[in-house]
């Protein structure tokens, strides 16, 4: 059976603000799903729900057929779910190497294997030379890549990335995307990526999910989404700082 991660009928309310309003989302093996929408659309909230950080007011979640509604983040992580945060969250006092090592140790991997994963992921993301430095001594671009390396150390079935390229230069952003694709080549991992840069979304994603004011307004291929009137008005209507 191919793996899948499905959320149905997700509602999240913040004091009357419907951050998510009846959202269905499905992640599939090997697929890259883009999650886009104007600022405040509910993208981060959806990632928080999927990773167990945000309680759902209504709705259900299924991971490979098993009901995982209401599970805590650490249990979901051990079931194969990894995420990054909007604005990197690193283990600042630990070394670059330890940050990645802990990613593997967290899900119960042995010491030797954890170190091996750290070695290979640090080279994949171009951080090998800085392995022994404290994590917070990395430049911003390095910190973003380190967070991805740490998430990949879990060997996730599903990977949720919240604006991994935000604040990076075009070159750095391209490097990051090629690293993600590199990793995906020999993995069945399904990826959800939040990204404002349409160039990235169009080149990377198999499907795109568009949110606006907590509601799904379109799910389809990048080409379909680009051609959709509703999506265009949502973006133009809000007029935020969209790169599209």
């Amino acid at each position: 059976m191919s793996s899948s991660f499905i959320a149905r009928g997700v509602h999240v309310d913040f004091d009357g603000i419907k951050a998510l309003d009846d959202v269905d989302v499905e992640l599939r093996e090997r697929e890259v799903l883009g999650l886009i929408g104007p600022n405040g659309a509910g993208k981060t909230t959806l990632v928080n729900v999927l990773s167990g950080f945000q309680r759902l007011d209504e709705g259900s979640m299924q991971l490979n057929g098993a009901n995982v509604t209401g599970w805590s983040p650490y249990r979901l992580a051990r079931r194969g779910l990894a995420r990054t945060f909007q604005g990197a969250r690193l283990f600042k006092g630990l070394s670059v190497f330890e940050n990645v090592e802990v990613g593997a140790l967290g899900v119960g991997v042995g010491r030797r294997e954890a170190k091996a994963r750290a070695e290979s992921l640090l080279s994949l993301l171009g951080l090998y030379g800085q392995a022994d430095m404290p994590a917070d001594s990395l430049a911003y671009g390095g910190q973003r890549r380190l967070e991805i390396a740490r998430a990949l150390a879990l060997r996730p079935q599903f990977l949720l990335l919240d604006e991994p390229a935000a604040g990076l230069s075009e070159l750095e952003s391209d490097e990051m995307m090629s690293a993600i694709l590199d990793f995906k080549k020999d993995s069945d991992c399904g990826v959800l990526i939040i990204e404002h840069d349409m160039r990235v979304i169009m080149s990377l994603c198999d499907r795109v999910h568009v949110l606006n004011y907590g509601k799904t307004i379109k799910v389809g291929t990048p080409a379909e989404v680009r051609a959709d009137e509703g999506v265009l008005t949502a973006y133009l209507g809000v007029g935020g700082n969209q790169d599209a």
Partner: protein
Amino acid sequence: MKHSNSPLLSWIGRRVWPLVALIVPLGAIALFGGTGSIVFQREVTTMMMYMVVVVGYYIFVGNSGVTSFGHISFMIIGAYTAALLTLTVQQKIILLPDLPSFLADVHFGFVGGALLGAVVAAVFAAVIALPINRLTGISLSLAMFAILLTVNVIVSHWTSVTRGVTSMFGVPQSTTLGSAFVFASITIVAAWMFQWTRVGLRMRAAREDEPAARAVGISIPRDRAIAFILSGFFVGLGGALFAQFLGAFNSDTFYISTTLLTIAMLVIGGFKSLSGAVVGTVFVSALDAGLRRMEDGFALGPLEVGSRPGLSAVGLALCMLLVLVFRSEGLTGSREIPSLWRLRRNETPPADTLPAPATDRKDVS
């Protein structure tokens, strides 16, 4: 920083050297202490026993980043257990006529008393570990304080076993400067090894960033519970050593002032590093001993200063205040002793991966 290609050398440089750099100076202090007056010997021995308590305390606080205001309860349990086990059967008949027979009829030597004191404290820690570690931050700190108050009340009133507020006395005074140093060293080695285990590394990760730690699958309460039990063991060991050093003590000997003193030691040294715990214990012990001597009055050149009771308490509080204000990470900056050399990792990544990282930071949109 030198680099090395040998994993063994690297391991020695990173894992063995910092330990040597802590324990050898401590050994020198012990040797020096051994040549001094009786009073000085006792002061150095007391410092070594506090080392056991503070490093044990550090195992939980340093790795979790959460303060506990009740760790001295483990010390109380260790102390009373050691006393009950090392008093002779005849002494117990006189001192504690109503003692349950499984305690009345046993007798252990110094090491047995010390280790069993530690074990009983660890068992107590294990009993409360899970509920306590469901709490975080200040709730945990205060819950531990409540535990300390409770243990103190029990010890004060359980007269048949503890003699209550009257003194427990006649405990063989077997803790020597040498044995205290050996136990201090063992505690330091254990704390150092623990922080490099999987549990230790995961805990320090969670200390740095809780959400990120949970996102990589770390069960924070479970890991903390393990450190809590280990911590209870060593703080209990410290209590057992104290009991066998003092010979006589009562329910107030290990209580609020001991709590404050040990917290001061950890905070002043730097609570997030083992080096901080060790340096803080030495520094505060020296300061405390010095101030205590001055309490009886002293001469400052031609100036005669009369008796100043309370000088040591005020001095300690002032010192802690200064550290908190000007050096919140403690004297060591909460850093460990630096490695001697590093393992040289490949500076240029393998050819088929990414080019060297760009370092420019652009503002987040």
